[in-house]
């Protein structure tokens, strides 16, 4: 089974702090994604990566950056956390290789971040 793990389930940070959210997948997937999930807004894509050291902006990249130094790990960074970044953050991974359940995204359990 594919496993996507996230470093924390719950996190409380203060305004202005730098925040790191880590995500690791164990299925050798090329693609990794970061979403935020807010009530009534569904999932919104922040950033994604289709290869090591590659990154692409999603729909709401402002205030976030990402890092992918190794294939299995994708980090989301909040450079200076603000209260409007209080949310549930979901990491996902997928593959496009034939025979690998193409495009099916596997999700981690999420990190509920509260910025006070």
């Amino acid at each position, binding site marked *: 089974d594919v496993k996507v793990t996230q470093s924390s389930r719950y996190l409380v940070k203060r305004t202005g702090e730098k925040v790191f959210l880590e995500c690791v997948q164990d299925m050798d997937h090329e693609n990794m994604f970061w979403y935020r999930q807010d009530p*009534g807004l569904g*999932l919104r894509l922040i950033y994604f990566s289709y290869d090591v050291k590659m990154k692409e902006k999603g729909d709401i990249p402002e205030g976030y950056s990402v890092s992918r130094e190794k294939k299995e790990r994708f980090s989301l960074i909040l450079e200076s956390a603000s209260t409007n970044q209080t949310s549930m953050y979901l990491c996902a991974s*997928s593959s496009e290789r034939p025979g690998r359940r193409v495009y099916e*995204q596997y999700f981690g359990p999420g990190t509920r971040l509260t910025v006070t």
Partner: protein
Amino acid sequence: AQSVSQHNHHVILSEAASLELGCNYSYGGTVNLFWYVQYPGQHLQLLLKYFSGDPLVKGIKGFEAEFIKSKFSFNLRKPSVQWSDTAEYFCAGKVGSQGNLIFGKGTKLSVKP
């Protein structure tokens, strides 16, 4: 703009009632569509997906969805819901070449025992 829309924000049903959750997409080209479910306190998991072929797709836990190209729809159905189906359901479509998915805003299903 490419989008996936879900018509219902919150649906409340009694056990054994039939379920249909609406999903419409608004983009052309190759269509790959998914339904995901998020049970309370759990991570999102795939219910079913449509890539090509038979437009009636069967998924896990008795769910099915029908792709109707002329209506740009991919509605989720279940003939008889159970209390354990209480969850939030998300429709998603693949866009772009890197496997990005666009998600609908979700439909919360509450099933009364």
